[in-house]
């Protein structure tokens, strides 16, 4: 493990988001942790133990995968699991999005992606939600956003207990 390398280009990776109905319009939200992605300003990592800088031997930082396929696999896998940290219920999402994300600041590279201190979406592809949602996200985040419909299913809410 080497430490301290300086890179002058932002990292580029892939993520999946759900889209929630925010006060000022649709907002990107992380899948597992309670993080809403602000528009026109970077999201900064905040770890209760380590602050904004991701540490090698912890899971803190903003995560991104190396490939689109890995991000889609993650979406599909998340469907069958109950989020532990996420307080907003996935069944209330306006849509699902996959896209590229830029990362910078202090970062840790991984074999299948990276974790960074700062991140901002680079471009978005709405999988569920429609073209109007893609347009609204493009306007709000000022990034390219398209609509496509691959075979990704929305999470099914768990049955209510009596």
């Amino acid at each position, binding site marked *: *493990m*080497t*430490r*301290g*390398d*300086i*890179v*002058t*280009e*932002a*990292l580029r990776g892939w993520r999946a988001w759900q889209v929630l109905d925010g006060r000022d319009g649709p907002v990107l939200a992380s899948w*597992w942790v309670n993080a809403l992605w602000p528009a*026109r*300003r*970077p999201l900064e990592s905040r770890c209760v133990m380590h602050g904004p800088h991701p540490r*090698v*031997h912890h*899971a803190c930082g903003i*995560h*991104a*995968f*190396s490939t689109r396929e890995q991000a889609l696999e*993650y979406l599909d896998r998340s469907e069958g699991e109950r989020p532990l940290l996420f307080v907003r219920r996935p069944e209330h999402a306006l849509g699902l999005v996959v896209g590229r994300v*830029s*990362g*910078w*600041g*202090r*970062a*840790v*590279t*991984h*074999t*299948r*992606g*990276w*974790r*960074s201190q700062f991140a*901002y979406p*680079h471009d978005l592809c709405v999988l569920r939600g429609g073209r109007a949602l893609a347009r609204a996200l493009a*306007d709000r*985040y*000022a*990034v390219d956003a398209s609509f496509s419909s691959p075979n990704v299913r929305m999470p099914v809410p768990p049955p209510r207990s009596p």
Partner: protein
Amino acid sequence: MADIGRPEREIDVRPVEVPVPRELPLEPAEPEPHRPEPVEEPTPA
């Protein structure tokens, strides 16, 4: 949580330009100042 594999190395990423769009939505264009219709000068008889 996202399975991004084993950690490899810690780096410091300092992009020359921060990849966050700064431009705001276009404001409605200001109306053009009113210009009076050209009036034909009466031709001298």
